């Protein structure tokens, strides 16, 4: 009988301890897998979200993240100038302002108005009705439409609080709901509507003129070359490709999750190694007489060491396999918790699967099985046969 079936029989002989050991490895493995998914998850998800929207380059007034820094002045002229750069296919200025909807007997509903101007496609996907065609029309998110009880074709009175001028006495503006849309960058705690920048300016009663939070650019070729060209054309602005935007996020507070993932991965691995080592060591210590007898019967030292290693491999292997579905379930739960954080787009995820994470997980589990088996293997390798058998008989 080879080492693996022999180790399997050793485990089956002690079903309670084997099951508990495997379950423990599964739980630790699931946590380890999740930490690996978390380490890069947010950045991968952000990159995917940025690329999915179709814009290659983003232009802002400063290096602050959009919606948190100063605005670009003379947005229409700047957008036109950027659109005229040879490597730019189209450009779109976008400004975010706060819109309020009065409801009978309830507090006003606050939403974000995305006002756009330019030649590039709108940063939303229409799911019902049609897109905005003229000034005075808006598209609204499905959730907002439900809460307001309106649909495509309705006329909606809205009040807009323009960020540069917080005067609340602006009259309501009647907008036509052209359609219902999905907004990729809508935050989890946010309701969104979109329209033209001119519509937003009108809603602001002319208090805010031609300012934009960001200009989105679609390049006709290499985004890096386009970004460089835009930077040359408008040196006073901050230009970033999607990859550079991800870099800004990476440098920001979200690195916290990478750091916490590293710390927890290390702690989890140490925990797993320690506990599997103790389990195997106690198991080997209980079977010293049996091991010595097998050695006396002619089984080689290497064969007995392989037996211990196989036992470790079986516990970690089965536990590791179980850890994958458990890890996915746990990741879904933890992702739901973290996505309740304010300011996080609903389509952004903290835990993102990637093959390299699975590869690293398998590699770490293999290393865990090997390292955890080292000490018990040493016990077996240095076991004095005669003395152990004698002690066993006397006992």
């Amino acid at each position: 009988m080879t080492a693996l079936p022999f180790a399997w029989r050793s485990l089956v002989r002690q079903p309670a301890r084997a099951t508990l050991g495997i379950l423990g490895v599964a739980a630790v493995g699931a946590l380890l897998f999740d930490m690996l998914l978390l380490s890069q998850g947010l950045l991968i998800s952000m990159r995917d979200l940025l690329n999915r929207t179709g814009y290659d380059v983003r232009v802002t007034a400063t290096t602050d993240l959009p919606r948190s820094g100063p605005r670009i002045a003379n947005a229409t002229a700047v957008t036109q100038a950027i659109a005229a750069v040879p490597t730019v296919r189209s450009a779109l200025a976008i400004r975010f302002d706060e819109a309020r909807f009065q409801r009978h007997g309830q507090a006003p509903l606050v939403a974000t108005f995305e006002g756009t101007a330019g030649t590039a496609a709108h940063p939303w996907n229409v799911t019902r009705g049609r897109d905005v065609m003229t000034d005075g029309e808006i598209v609204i998110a499905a959730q907002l439409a439900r809460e307001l009880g309106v649909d495509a074709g309705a006329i909606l009175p809205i009040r807009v609080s323009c960020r540069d001028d917080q005067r609340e006495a602006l009259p309501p503006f009647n907008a036509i709901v052209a359609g219902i849309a999905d907004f990729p960058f809508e935050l989890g705690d946010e309701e969104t509507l979109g329209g033209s920048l001119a519509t937003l300016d009108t809603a602001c009663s002319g208090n805010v003129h031609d300012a934009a939070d960001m200009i989105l650019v679609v390049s006709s070729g290499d985004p890096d070359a386009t970004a460089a060209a835009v930077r040359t054309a408008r040196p006073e602005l901050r230009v970033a490709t999607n990859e550079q935007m991800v870099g800004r996020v990476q440098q920001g507070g979200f690195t916290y999750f990478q750091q916490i993932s590293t710390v927890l991965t290390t702690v989890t691995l140490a925990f797993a190694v320690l506990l599997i080592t103790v389990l195997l060591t106690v198991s080997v210590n209980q079977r010293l007489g049996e091991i010595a007898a097998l050695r006396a019967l002619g089984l080689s030292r290497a064969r007995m060491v392989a037996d211990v290693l196989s036992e470790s491999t079986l516990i970690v292997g089965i536990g590791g396999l179980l850890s994958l579905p458990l890890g996915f379930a746990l990741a879904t739960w933890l992702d739901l918790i973290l996505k309740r954080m304010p300011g996080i787009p609903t389509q952004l995820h903290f835990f993102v699967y990637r093959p390299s994470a699975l590869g690293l997980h398998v590699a770490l589990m293999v290393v865990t099985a090997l390292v955890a088996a080292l000490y018990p293997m040493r016990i077996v390798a240095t076991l004095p046969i005669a003395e152990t058998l004698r002690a066993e008989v006397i006992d």
Partner: protein
Amino acid sequence: MFARGLLVVVLSCVATAVAAAPPTTPPDILVSRQLAEAEHLAVGSIVRLGPAADGGAAREFRIAGIYEPTPDPQRLGSPQREVRLHLPDLLDLTRSPDVLAGTEHLDGINVALNEPGDAQAFARQVQASMPGVIATRSDQVYPAGSFVVLRRFHLAIASVTISAATVFLLALTIMLVDERRDTVGVLRLIGLPVRRILTQILLEGLLVAAAGALFGLVLAIISQGLINRFFQWRYDTALVFVHVSPAIAATCVWIAVPLGAAATVGASWALLRRNGLQLVRR
């Protein structure tokens, strides 16, 4: 006294040391430590600050001091490059030409009460007498949303860790109890009742769990310093990331000790149901 208005400066564009001192002393400002380090500024330096990134309408100021900003968890990862000005200086610097002096908007007014305990009543009174003004107690100004979520996340991680630890603990105690099968059998054979042996096992379990919890706390206190130092260095902040408070320590002990003792007793229970002869394999 310095006003609380902050002007976050794009320093690379607008702050440049001026070689010669101007004939009239420029107004004083305070500069955050991070900004001073990044731009090699010192107390007494004259800098030019402007409201626009291109340096337009910039004015000269004298650095009167360098301060450590109050750590702001909301700005983790963004170095706090800040300048503090007297409010009139800030308003002069940022006022639009079409705005009359004295009609500018403020972000907020900080009020120090003689009796801090009256804050809630004072806030209610201000809101009632000045419609449109929002008065909030200082401890309620910043929404705790992100931290509530992070707390839930850490609790979830902790619950998974505790589950894994419990499973391992059960496996270990089953093995350890099995090792003592003969001893327990002899104790049964010489007449010790099950309850007496169980009490002994419970006490042993409590002692071991208490020692383990204590060791865990010492480890946590040591690692707390290391983790804080690492993250404070990484984010250039004075924020405290890990704090083993007495309440947290008590919670850990409250979970670990009963769990350890229960695992020991639970694992022993199956053994104690057998009779003495079975235990000594006779």
